[in-house]
């Protein structure tokens, strides 16, 4: 395929993407109108919960939150006296809309180093799991490549389709994914061993350090931005030795890094805390032993900022909240479990100025639940993105 063909294809994909976003059903059509939601309980996350609170939405943004607010004239009012409202959930690491059932399409297994790839180019906004995703309560996701490449692709932060035109892609290049997990070792291409894996990452970063502008080396060009601290690096690693290797690389190249997975990070949580390295924890649903289930609580208690991920379709997008509830059941402070689903994830992904809490000025991305957000029995009743009702549970 020639270069121009590739460009045309990418444009086409973008067109499809934006078309689908425009064409998505806008049920309430409340986008331009002022919308006031009266809920039994409002969870702003950045402040304490408000009983019988109000959220005022204008032009897709939150303009006021509180208990006793004047209702603007002509506003549409949603009365939900027995419901709970919280910010739209943010999934810190998933593979939504990238493949049907298997990971085959998100693993570039021929080349081990592919930072010039952009995962958004493989995103299908019309995939079945994307349309189904709206009822999960998740409104923003980080799309990531797979686990087999030491240096994989650029990740993207996107809002789920369903809202207005400006929904959709928030950041096409939100960071580069590294994998220092054992998944990156293969038998038929470099690296095949753990030391080989670390050596290869070093080699690529060193090469990027010597990159001269104007030379054609798209991989080095991207990695140079990473070592200059302009582009975050999300490093997937689980066991202690893998996390230690990640810390060595982060220190050596002064990377702006996030740890992803981090199953055993409790063993060395202080090292992460003193470096201010945040982490996106693996789905706790993938764990079953008490010892493992208690780890994430200890990590957060050590002062590490923790957010959650579904790895969807590995676990369901709708189980992002389940993961946080299980973490809380096994020792994570409940308020940190809620932050991990919202504001912490927004901060780690660099989108906290727009998302992650119910505060004036932020995007009106909201979830309305039948009960307490940390109860499994609570179901998603309504999802709002940019002030538009994009999902509403069918009435009996």
């Amino acid at each position, binding site marked *: 395929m020639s270069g121009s063909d590739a460009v045309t294809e990418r444009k086409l994909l973008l067109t499809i993407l934006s078309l689908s976003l425009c064409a998505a059903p806008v049920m309430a059509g409340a986008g331009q109108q002022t919308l006031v939601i009266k809920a039994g309980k409002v969870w702003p996350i950045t402040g304490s919960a408000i009983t019988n609170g109000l959220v005022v939405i204008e032009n897709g943004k939150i303009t006021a939150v509180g208990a006793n607010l004047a209702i603007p004239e002509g506003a549409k009012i949603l009365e939900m006296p027995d419901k709970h409202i919280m910010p739209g959930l943010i999934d810190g690491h998933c593979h939504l809309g990238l493949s049907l059932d298997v990971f085959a399409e998100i693993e570039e297994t021929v080349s081990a180093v592919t930072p010039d790839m952009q995962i958004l180019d493989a995103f299908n906004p019309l995939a079945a799991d994307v349309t189904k995703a709206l009822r999960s309560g998740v409104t923003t996701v980080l799309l990531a490549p797979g686990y087999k490449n030491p240096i994989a692709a650029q990740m993207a932060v996107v809002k789920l389709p369903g809202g207005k035109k400006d929904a959709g892609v928030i950041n096409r290049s939100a960071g580069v994914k590294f994998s220092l997990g054992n998944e990156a070792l293969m038998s038929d291409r470099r690296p095949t061993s753990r030391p080989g894996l670390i050596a290869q990452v070093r080699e690529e970063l060193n090469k990027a350090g010597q990159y001269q502008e104007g030379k054609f080396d798209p991989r080095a060009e991207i990695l140079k931005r990473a070592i200059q601290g302009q582009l975050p690096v999300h490093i997937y690693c689980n066991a202690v030795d893998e996390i230690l290797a990640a810390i060595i690389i982060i220190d050596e190249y002064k990377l702006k890094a996030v740890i992803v997975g981090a199953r055993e990070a409790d063993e060395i949580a202080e090292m992460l805390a003193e470096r201010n390295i945040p982490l996106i924890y693996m789905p706790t649903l993938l764990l079953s032993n008490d010892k493992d289930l208690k780890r994430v609580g200890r990590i957060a208690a050590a002062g590490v900022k923790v957010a959650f991920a579904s790895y969807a379709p590995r676990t369901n997008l709708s189980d992002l909240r389940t993961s946080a509830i299980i973490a809380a059941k096994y020792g994570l402070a409940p308020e940190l479990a809620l932050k991990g689903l919202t504001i912490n994830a927004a901060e780690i992904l660099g989108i906290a100025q727009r998302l992650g809490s119910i505060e004036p000025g932020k995007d009106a991305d909201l979830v309305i639940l039948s009960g307490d957000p940390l109860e499994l*029995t609570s179901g998603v009743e309504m999802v709002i993105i940019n002030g538009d009702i994009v999902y509403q549970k069918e009435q009996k």
Partner: protein
Amino acid sequence: MVSCKHIFILLSLFLLSTVTAGSAAENIAIRAGNILTISGGVIENGIILVEDGKIKALGQEVVVPDGARVIDAKDKYVVPGLVDAQSRLYVIDGELNESRAVAPELDILDAVDPFIKERQEVLAQGVTAVCVAPGNRGLLGGLGAILKLSGGKTAKDIVLRTNVAVKGAIGISRSNQSSSLTRLENYSSIREALLETQTYMQQKRKYDQELAEYEKKKAEKKEQAKTDDQQADKGDTTSRAAKDKPTRPAKPRTNPTYEILARVLGKEIPLQIEAHRVDDILNALRLADEFDLRLILDKCTEGYKVADQIARRKVPVIAGPISTSFLDTPALEYRNHDTRNAAILSKKGVKVALGVAGRDGASSKFIALAAAMAVANGMDRHAALRAITLTPAEIFGVADRIGSLEVGKDADVVIFNRHPLDAFSQVEMVLIEGKIVYERK
């Protein structure tokens, strides 16, 4: 001297502990704020009296006998021990499939390791019994069993009931090394095995008849011989006993496969078929119609699409997993999985038990979470709680022993500090057959 003293203390501690462990017959009275009996509503501020491992009495007017140990659970919830109907506890997944496709005579009990370490963690979440069954790679994989979490040294110590069902599977996509096992073949192979069993039973019945005839004839001959002898004594020498001696019919070979399937056809053992896709579910229902057997639908992933048909036939369903997140790698048959499946089936009147169907034995600890998730997806709260207690007990024929708090049943009792479906509810104490087997520190 010091060490001597230590040894003495250790020895006496040891003796003390053996004495406590031995005193199983201790009478216990639980004073409970809320008793969720499951079978008979909620009893507020009641007492459960436990004697000889059984529930002796329960209600508001129960008198606590002298010498009974009283457990205070005034602000707590007391429920029957929870049951995971799709468990991997005590067994190792990789060991649960035989290379033969039709092997219903295999008994899961032969693969049970009672020492498995995850038992304590699962018990600590209020689970007192699990159903374990062979894997899904064969067509008829073997016999399942209900095991308790009381612990023991042999499989016999923990088993509540064996032969609870023959586990079958239709339409499982994973490859099998032994035979082709394509979807087209699944249903017809199971059907063939059942038809062969019918022939086998006919042959056996024929043999039984012939044998009875033979025995009858033999007895007649014997009688004849006696008279002949008497006549011989009288001088008659023409013995008729030697003539037309009856021949013993050839005994057909006993076939363990058909022996078990004969009990399935005789409605003694239910057939538990794992089916996911609608066509596979319908095929399982056809088998039940044709052979008039007791069917249990397992997994039943797309059951919500044909809930009416399942309800009409009164076939019970073990729905699970509630979310594919509990699976390691969701196989193709879960493509149309819907978290509302259990709720929809239950609302249509299907008898629904829930299972975790998790990735390993320890996953059974999530059974209360699975029930809570079913509630979030529209299942009635009571139905969800029943689906992890009495309903699985009924489906597997052990409701006379477990599943609800009733007089005469095993004293398998769990004390929660909050409602068992609350995510943060904690188990305070677990009793199995009247013995305290877990206590929160």
